[in-house]
């Protein structure tokens, strides 16, 4: 079948009534997650995995996986739309990829142009989302064909590259990021070894035999960690919400933002594909790019429409671009995609080059639903933005305990074990202290998800070579990946030593 045929089938899947509903609920919750400061896309997605798992429980496995991933991906890109709302209206970014939007967005709101800033942000997000989707469709097949030729040695090195890329860009200290990665990998080794059947590090506790559940760790570290942070570091909210009056941007504003939107889409897409980069860096870079090529850069920061259009387009484009390595190579490039991958693996759907052959329904259903979801978001965000702005007023008093209750319900519904709940609570406290002290959490979750796959590929490669470790260096593609891995880790250290400022990624 050709790509077009697959895509039509995908639309067939995406247009089933409950999948439409799932997409809608996903983008709706995603927008809310984006609007609410304190819950990022990572905790949002992690929190919803168990909830979707229980909702889709009655469907056959593959259909359930499709519906669940449609909803979860909806949360992911929905959050990119929602993040702009608070940046513009409140000067508080709803999530880290919208930090740059505050610079010009809030200034516009102060001048009474909040409406057009919001609508340009929505239009830009929509264009960015659609452009990357088209690129995703075009690249999916060739990329997975390349990846199919990889042997275990290549896969091992490629995954190392993915881990190194995420660790190299996450947080302030590479050492800390690497420690978190290794901890994630080590956590992944607990349980019964899938190759030899030997129990490792279980200390004869039956609960540990099936391994540490990724879901418990992710919900605990991200969602509960953020909740505890909000409780401990109570901030007094100040500043009113800017009024939204005129939603329709003027012709001049449209014209002014066309260029930034086009450039933001392409830049965001490429940054998104890069493992470790992600939406925050994309929005940051596109803002800098616009400022550099602008005729009068002094206008940036005082409320120019280009300063809103570019980053908002880029972060959405990047979130789409990040799906490419996940779906075609099976390697998540960021925290949120790692969580999406964990969700897929819970349904026994292995992302990677075989995904498009083994589970075309999942892959193409997801892609088609992203078209629909982006359209829904455009409609939701243009006329209904005033309703969403109201979400900001949700009192923390109710929100925080409800998030704890939802995490506990979700983990218990999937795991049915009090031990997992205790682990969840422990991870929550740990998550707070780790992220407070600049230990990034995304690499840990990534390590936990990728750990078993890295180990299996390493052992397969070593079995083929009869225990000879040079197999990773003698195969050219594998060697190339390893060289890039080393460079990725070494170059920032060298740059830092020279006193250069290295851009880092705070989000995942």
């Amino acid at each position: 079948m050709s790509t077009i045929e697959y895509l039509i089938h995908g639309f067939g899947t995406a247009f089933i009534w409950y999948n439409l509903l799932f997409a809608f609920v996903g983008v709706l919750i995603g927008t809310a997650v984006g609007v609410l400061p304190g819950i990022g896309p990572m905790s949002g997605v992690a929190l919803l995995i168990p909830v979707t798992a229980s909702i889709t429980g009655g469907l056959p496995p593959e259909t359930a996986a499709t519906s669940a991933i449609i909803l979860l991906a909806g949360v992911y890109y929905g959050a990119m739309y929602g993040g702009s709302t608070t940046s513009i209206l409140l000067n508080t970014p709803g999530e880290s990829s919208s930090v740059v939007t505050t610079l010009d967005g809030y200034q516009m709101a102060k001048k009474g142009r909040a409406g057009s800033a919001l609508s340009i942000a929505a239009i830009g997000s929509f264009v960015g989302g659609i452009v990357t989707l088209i690129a995703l469709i075009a690249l999916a097949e060739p990329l997975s064909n390349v990846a199919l030729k990889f042997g275990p040695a290549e896969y091992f090195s490629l995954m190392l590259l993915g881990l190194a890329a995420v660790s190299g860009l996450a947080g302030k200290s590479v050492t800390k990021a690497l420690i978190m990665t290794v901890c994630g990998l080590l956590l992944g080794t607990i349980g019964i070894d899938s190759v030899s059947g030997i129990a490792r590090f279980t200390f004869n506790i039956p609960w540990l035999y099936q391994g540490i559940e990724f879901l418990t760790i992710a919900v605990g570290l991200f969602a509960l960690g953020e909740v505890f942070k909000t409780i401990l570091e109570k901030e007094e909210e100040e500043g009113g919400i800017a009024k939204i009056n005129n939603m329709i941007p003027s012709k001049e504003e449209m014209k002014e933002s066309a260029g930034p939107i086009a450039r933001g889409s392409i830049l965001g897409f490429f940054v998104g594909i890069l493992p470790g980069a992600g939406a925050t860096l994309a929005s940051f870079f596109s803002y800098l790019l616009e400022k550099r090529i602008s005729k009068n850069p002094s206008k940036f920061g005082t409320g120019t429409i280009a300063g809103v259009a570019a980053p908002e387009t880029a972060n959405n484009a990047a979130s789409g671009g990040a799906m490419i390595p996940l779906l075609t190579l099976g390697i998540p490039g960021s925290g949120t995609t790692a969580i999406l991958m964990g969700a897929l693996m819970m349904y026994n759907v292995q992302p990677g080059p075989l995904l498009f052959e083994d589970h075309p329904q999942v892959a193409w259903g997801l892609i088609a639903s992203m078209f629909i979801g982006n359209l829904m978001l455009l409609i939701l965000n243009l006329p209904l933005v005033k309703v969403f702005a109201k979400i900001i007023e949700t009192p923390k008093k109710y929100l925080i305990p409800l998030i704890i209750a939802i995490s506990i319900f979700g983990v218990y519904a999937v795991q049915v074990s009090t031990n997992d709940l205790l682990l969840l609570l422990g991870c929550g406290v740990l998550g707070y202290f780790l992220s407070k002290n600049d230990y990034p959490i995304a690499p840990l979750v990534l390590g936990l998800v990728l750990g078993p796959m890295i180990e299996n590929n390493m052992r397969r490669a070593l079995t083929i070579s009869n225990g000879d470790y040079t197999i990773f260096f003698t195969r050219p593609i594998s060697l190339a990946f390893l060289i890039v891995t080393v460079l990725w880790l070494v170059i920032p250290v060298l740059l830092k030593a020279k006193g250069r400022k290295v851009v880092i990624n705070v989000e995942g």
Partner: protein
Amino acid sequence: MSIKFDRVAAVLFLAVGILFIVGSKQLASSSYGSKVGPDIFPFFLGIILAVLSIRLFYETFSVKGHGSKKEKLQYKPFLIIFAATFLYILTLETIGYVITTFLFLFVCFQTMERTKWISSLIISAAFSGLVYFLFVEILKGTLPGWPVWFS
């Protein structure tokens, strides 16, 4: 960003790394049909973690005191909510979901802000009842509903 935290963490990570090295040496070193056993991967990871934690410890010396500003942390509500969550988890299976969730939410709502207790009451009751009804009655999931001594 306290140096103390980093040092303690470095020591702890070093201990974890060494434990994994020792632990992996006690595993059977080879599996059937393969020279590479289940011990190789955790063994190497343990070494890497130990090396990294030594590096982290070393790095704490090069960081000059940033003049750490003390921010005021709200310990009291945090401890109450933490304790409430802990009790909630421990009693969930014996007392059942509906009652524990209701009590947990009500306590936490009132801890966050001691106003409007009627709406706190309504929201906690609505949430616990609704989740139980949707999950158990409609989705046919398993959840300990009511105290064990009732059923």
